[in-house]
């Protein structure tokens, strides 16, 4: 019951503010609503007992990436841009893509009802008490099974950092 309340609360907040984010004219408002969405998603992670992902989401997304976004929005002052047209004329493309995807997932969810005992709408998770401590489990995953991807990800970050510095630097 509590699970349900928490899930629907966070899911509602996430979807609502995501919609707000896409429709606001002012980029700063969009950023604020995106932060709300990300926090709500973090709440969902917590509800899924993924504490480390939750805190990674808060630290990296909310306090890292979003700060970067807001910083850039502040730098490229958008006083003028707000009054310009904010939406390009690709409405129909968007509608088509959306409908196609929604149909796909809908069919999938609907068809899964047919399978007795293990459909998508039946809870069949490992009980919460039996999960290993999240941080430790994640560490084992990261540094045992997926060490190579981990290293690649770190190289990716390094490359991105260098790239960002090079690009944002003033040409002298």
């Amino acid at each position, binding site marked *: 019951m509590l699970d349900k309340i928490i899930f629907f609360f966070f899911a509602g907040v996430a979807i609502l503010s995501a919609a707000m984010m896409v429709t606001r004219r002012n980029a700063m408002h969009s950023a604020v609503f995106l932060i709300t*969405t990300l926090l709500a998603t973090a709440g969902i992670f917590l509800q899924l007992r993924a504490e480390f992902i939750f805190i990674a989401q808060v630290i990296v997304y909310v306090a890292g990436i979003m700060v970067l976004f807001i910083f850039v929005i502040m730098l490229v002052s958008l006083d003028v841009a707000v009054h310009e047209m904010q939406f390009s004329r690709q409405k129909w493309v968007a509608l088509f893509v959306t409908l196609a995807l929604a149909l796909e997932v809908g069919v999938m969810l609907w068809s899964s009802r047919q399978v007795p005992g293990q459909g998508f709408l039946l809870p069949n998770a490992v009980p919460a008490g039996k999960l290993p401590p999240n941080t430790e489990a994640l560490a084992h995953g990261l540094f045992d099974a997926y060490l190579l991807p981990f290293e690649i990800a770190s190289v990716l970050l390094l490359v991105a950092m260098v790239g960002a510095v090079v690009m944002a630097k003033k040409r002298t």
Partner: protein
Amino acid sequence: MMPIGYYLFLSMALFLIGAIGVITRRNVIVVLMSIELVLNAANINLVAFSRIFGDVAGQVFALFIIADAAAEAAVGLGIIIAFFRNRETVLEDEMDLLKW
């Protein structure tokens, strides 16, 4: 833990909203933010399945996605700043340097 279908539905909704944002918005910063939303939607799926199977791999890859999102944001915003310095705009259909 709710049935997995709910998470899939939430994830789909966020993904679609993100996709709509990517397609329709002109402001590159907002487009980038929509991409973050899409990545986030994928994360929900990964973590939900990780929970349902009791396997930590999904979370590991969710972490990778977060790292990737950080990298993408850094580079993307770097490009935006560089572009803004040259062209004084952040609207994507005015980014037409290659058309010259």
